[in-house]
Each structure stands twice: as C-alpha cells, then as structure tokens.
C-alpha cells in the first residue's frame, strides 16, 4: 500500500479563518437570536395528539386550540400523518385538571376523535432548574476532560483539544440557533456526547503526534501534524462512517422523538471530526510544540 499523504496542513490557515468566522457568527446568533428552548427549559405544556379522523386538518386543530384561551399556542405536524404536537406556555402554575379540561373542551368542539399520546407539563421553577443543570453538565464535562487531558498530555495539547471541543459546542449551538431547532433535555445529552466524541477523535491524532515527535527529531511540528493526520486518517474516516451509519439509522427509523437528538449528533460528529484535524492540530503548530516539549515533561 502506498503511503497516503494529503497536504492537510496547507489549508490550516484558510480553515482556521473559516472556523473563526463560524464561531463569531454563532456567538452573534446565540447572543441576539438565542436558542429555541422547548418545554423542558422554557416551561409550559406539550401535547402530542393523534387524530382518528383523516379529514381533520391542522388549521381545524389550530382553531379549536385557540378557542381554549391558553395563550400562545403552536400546532405542528409531528412525524406521521394525523400526529400533531401542540405547545403552549401556561402562565399560571399547573392546575391538577387542566389537561382534563382541555380534553373535554376539545371533544365538545371537534368531537371525540383524538388520542393524547404524550403530555409534558413543566412548571417555571423546574424548567429553570433543568436549564441550570444542563449548563452545569456541559461545563463540568468540559472541565473534567480538560483535567484528564492535562494529566495525560502537555498543556499545549490540552489547550488544542479543549479549543477544538469548545469550537464544536459553539458551532453546533449556533447551528441550532440558525435553524431555530428546538432545544430539550435530549439535546443536552447529544451535546455532551459530541464533546466526548470530538475529544476522542482529537486524542487519537494527538497520541500519534506525540509518538511521531519522539520518533523524528528533525521534522517540524507543521509536518509532524500532517503525517499524524494522514496516518490516522483511515481510522478517523471508518469510525466516523460507522458512527454516522448508526446515527442515520436512528434519524430515519427511530421515530419522531429521537429526530432532534440524532440530528444534533450527526451534526456534532461531522463538526467534531473536522475540528480534530483543523482546530486541534494548528494550535500545536502555533504553540510551536517540538520534541523538547514532550521530553521536558518526561524529565520532570
């Protein structure tokens, strides 16, 4: 087999500028447009409803729900035909029987031709707590990874890996903001998994960089990173492909509830794979990592 040698390092600068723009763009989006929080984080009520009557359409449902005086109501199709998701913010606390009342009024209005498949009601206090614990989870996992990487590698590598992961989280969230993608609890799980995956990918390349730094004392880091990326490239591709295959399967066949989660993961895997090549490595180059860097650490 011939030795693969794709000059990844030629494009370091260009892609870094692109990433910088993407991060900036994402931060602007996140600051000014914000994220579209779902019921979990904003509070309110979500009802997944299946109608048993094919003639009933979405505007009928909208009309019925707007009569119920629930404030801002959104009605959307959800997965299959005849399935709808209705969301509204209820300002007061949840009364014990307000779901029951909705059912009664709805069947008076359009007839008893629906089935409530799922109801989620989250009070304002709980949603605040969920949001807080979601943010804590993401920050904590970034912190824990930083510590782990710090112990295992030199600080230059930790900085590279953490920057790459930070890049992934910001860009993924920016993308969600751009697409007005709904953020719920499972998205936090997806983001954390992305953090793990991206770190995983970066660590594999970094391990090779260290090994090559020891092996070749006369090659500059600029070249070393490129050699290492090429040597680990087939693994990077294969693992991304198998992971994406699994995720695509969830996305297509896993039902409407897992759609958001798997979409977020797919996005994250792609961004994570990119960043471990084009964010993590250029930082090593910029920090002028050399054989001395790792040897110094080992002497101490």
């Amino acid at each position, binding site marked *: 087999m011939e030795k693969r040698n794709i000059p990844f390092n030629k494009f370091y600068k260009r892609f870094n500028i692109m990433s910088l723009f993407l991060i900036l763009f994402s931060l602007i989006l996140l600051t000014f447009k914000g994220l579209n929080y779902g019921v979990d984080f904003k509070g309110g009520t979500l009802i997944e409803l299946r109608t048993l009557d094919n003639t009933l359409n979405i505007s009928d449902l909208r009309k019925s729900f707007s009569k119920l005086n629930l404030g801002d109501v959104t009605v959307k199709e959800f997965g299959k035909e005849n399935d709808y998701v209705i969301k509204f913010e209820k300002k007061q606390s949840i009364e014990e029987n307000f779901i029951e009342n909705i059912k009664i009024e709805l069947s008076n209005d359009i007839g008893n031709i629906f089935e409530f498949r799922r109801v989620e009601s989250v009070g304002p206090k709980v949603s605040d707590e969920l949001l807080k*614990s979601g943010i804590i989870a993401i920050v904590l996992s970034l912190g824990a990874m930083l510590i782990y990487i710090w112990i295992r590698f030199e600080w230059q590598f930790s900085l590279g890996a953490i920057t790459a992961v930070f890049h992934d989280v910001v860009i993924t969230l920016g993308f969600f903001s751009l697409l007005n993608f709904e953020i719920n609890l499972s998205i936090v799980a997806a983001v954390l998994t992305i953090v793990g995956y991206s*770190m995983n990918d970066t660590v594999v390349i970094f391990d090779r960089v260290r090994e090559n730094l020891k092996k070749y004392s006369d090659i500059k880091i600029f070249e070393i990173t490129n050699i290492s990326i090429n040597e680990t490239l087939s693994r990077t591709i294969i693992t991304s492909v198998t992971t994406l295959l699994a995720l695509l399967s969830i996305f297509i066949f896993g039902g409407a509830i897992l759609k958001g989660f798997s979409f977020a993961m797919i996005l994250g895997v792609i961004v994570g794979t990119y960043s471990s090549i084009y964010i993590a490595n250029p930082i090593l180059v910029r920090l002028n990592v050399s054989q001395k860097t790792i040897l110094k650490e080992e002497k101490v």
Partner: protein
Amino acid sequence: MLYFSKLKIISVLIFTLIISFFTISNFINIDNKLFNRNINLGLDLQGGSYLLLEIDNKPVVIQKLQNKLSSLKKFFADKDIRSTNFKIIDDEKISFVIDEDSLDKVLSLLTDKESEINPYFQRFKTHEFDVKETKVLSSTNITLEFSDYGLVQLKSSSQNQAIEIVRRRVDEIGTNEPNILKRGNDRILVELPGLENPDRIKSLLGKTANLTFRFVTLNEEESFGTEKLLYEDGSEAIISKRIILSGDNLVDAQPRMDNQSNQTVVTFTLDRVGAKKFARATSSGVGKRLAIILDGKIISAPNIVEPIVGGAGQITGDFTFQSATDLALLLRSGALPAPMKIIEERTVGPGLGQDSINAGILSLIIGFALVVLFMIVKYKIFGLIANVTLITNLLLLIGILTLFEATLTLPGIAGIILTVGMAVDANVLIYERIKEEIKSESNKIVAFDSGYVKSKTTILDANITTLIAALILFILGSGPVKGFALTLGVGILTTLFSVYFIARLFTALYVIKNKDKEKLI
C-alpha cells in the same frame, strides 16, 4: 499480547456466557428468582405518568410560628419574665419585647444548648430558631427566625407526612408498581407505570383534603371569630372558626347510595374521641346548621335534627358516585400536612410507548446491519471478527443492564445504537495499527502483537473521554436522559472487554494458524 492461557480463555468464556444468559432471560420465562430478571422499561417505553409534586410549606411555617408564639408567652409567664407585644412579622419571624434587665436571662434561656423552648440540634450544631436582639429605648426587641436547619427539619417532617399520604392515595387507586420517592426536601416524585389517564390521580394528589365540621352562624359576634366561605356553586355563608371535628378523627369513609333520598352520600365512622366530641356538639346544637368544609369550601351544611351519638354519620352533597368515591378515598387516606402542587408532569400513552419500542428496535437492527456490512466489506475476515465482537458486546451490554434490572428508556436505546457505531472504533484502531506494523515487520505474529500494544494507550484515552461525558450525564441528567448515559457508559466498558478478550482471542487463533499467508489483513 497474542498469548492466552487456558485458564483465561475459560474464565472469559464463562463470564460471557453468564452475562449473555441474562440477555436471553428477558425473552423467556424462568421459574427461578435469581435468574428470572428483566430489564425495566422506562415510562417513555411502557407508557405511564411521571409527576413531580412540590409541597407548599408556607402554611406549615405559619402554623408552627403561631404555636411557638403561644408556647413562648406561656413559657415566659411561668418564669415570671415580663414579655409583651408578641407578633408574627412577614409570616416568618416572631417578635416580642422584654425589659432590658431580663435580657441576659432570656438570651440564656433561648440560646442554651439545653434550651427547652428553642431546641438545639446536636447534629447540625444549631438551634431551631436564630435569635436576634435589638435595643429600643429601655427595652429590648427579640426576634426569632427559623434557622436554616430548623427550616430543613420542618420541611423534611412535612415531606415525611406527605409522602405517607401520597402513598396511601396511590395505593387506594391500585395502579401497578407505583414508584414514590422523595426529591430534595420539599418534593415528591410519583411514577405510575402503565397508567393511561393520570387525570384522576392528579386531582386526588392535588387536594389537601383538610376536612372540618363547623357551625354556620347567623350573628357575627362569635367568640372564636368567623369567616365567609363559599359553596361549590359560589354562594356564601358565615362560618364559625371553632372546629367541632376534623378529618383526623375519621377512621373510615365509604361512598353509599342513600335509599331514602336516592342520593349518593359518603358515610364515615369516627374514633372514640371524635365520636364523643361529635355527640356533644350535635346535642347542644340541635336546630343549628353544621357545615362540612373541605379545603376551605363548603360541601354542605345540613340542619342538625337530632344528636348523633353513634360515632357514625354521613356527608350529603351534590355528589356523583365518582366524586363520592374520591371524597371517601381522600378522607380515608388522611389530610396532607400542606398543600401540594404538580410542578412537572410527563405522561406517555401506551400506544406511543409501543411505537417507540418498535422504532427503537427497528433502528437498532438497521444500524447494526449497516455497521456489520461495512466492517465486512472493509476488513473481510477481521471484519467478521469485529462483528462477532460487536454481537458479544451487545449481549454483554443488555445482559449487564438486565442483571442490575436497570431501566431502559428510548434515549437509552439510542445509546445502545450509538455504542454499536462507536464500538468498532477500538478494533479499527488496532487493525489500522497492525497494517502499519506489518509494513516494517516480516514476522506476522510480532506485527500483530505490537499493533495491539501500541494502540492500547490511544484506545484507553479515547474511551475514557467518552466515559467521562457519560458519567457526568448520568449524575446530572434526569429521567430518560439518565438512561442514555447508562447505556453509553456501560457500552464503553463492555466494548473494551469484548475487544481485548473476545476479539483478541479470535484474532490470535486466526493469525497463529495463518501466519504464513501473504496478505493477512
């Protein structure tokens, strides 16, 4: 790395077989408690309701302060200490005024570790109440406020009472295997698997069920004071604040059809004390109207025709059979110490649950098939070994979840599928390394060996990072998301086991047999 001792092979095999057995035990029935284990399905898969209730402790705090205020008054009077101007401020503090010269004595009575009136909690190193004094001219103003731990104590005691009542109410309805747990010190989590419609249970849990019998008064100059209360239909009546009898004295309550009036009523039986009180009140009150009040609303206020001495009676009202049944249930199970609110509800119908299971299994099968196919195309015979590893991995993963009777949720299934996708990573890392080693090493066995050795730290590093993410998610996540973290985390462990014990064993056997083949991998 390619050498395996016989003992190791056997123990790996036995371990794998035992764990895999538990996977299979999900699908068959075994008459043995030890072996008949099943994965629990989360509420999102089997359908059911998740309710988070929050206790509003404010009324309890006010009640406690009022009680403390009267006992303080009595306490100081007994000790001949002049104390005046007792009042409760902002529903959270007691304040009163004492003479300056008795300050030292009062403070020592209130802040001594042996204090009778302000108990000291050894465990928390704090009193029930924090004491503050401020000088006002020649007297001193003392304020008592619940200390942090005093408040914790109060909250957890009302939580303990409330959870007991909640348990009784849920049991009375008779849902299968409810799960009732404390959350924090003022919340109660109720999980009701398989419950299709939680509306009834919600309305039952939302009621404090504070029942009192009090006279309706016509003149407003009652010595206990009076208040205006409403009937269900909105009309009002003036009710004495004197409580004749409360729900605490009830020992039983049942819905019944009254033969004479053809109405649904709730009959009740009183304990001895209650029967005596009730007899006395109804004897002296013949001709008066006795209001039956539930949670501040008048159910009915019948005329007392004759004294009721038998310790049993009935509540009439505008009942349907259902509402009478519910009222009887509430009265039997007792009153909550404080009102509760439902602050989070998640209900999944059985139809959606089954759909989610089907979708989850379908995507697992397809995802699995795609990965398996890809590996065979890419690595041929070693792809096959990786796939055998993958199957073992799945058997181990599900087996371990079954062994610990863990709860499988829809995101949990997603975690399993993701594990399938990421599990091959370790084998890929090894194989790619071996491919490199083979270029510079003519001895195939040595090449394979160093492939395994050199990829080891990378594989560990890579998996530990994902494990960290899973661990944090497991600790901080809630409900279904916790299920995802669980399968992802356990998946990493089973992956490492199956890669280093199962796959390596097969690889070793194959390589030793075919070491002279030209193109081995």
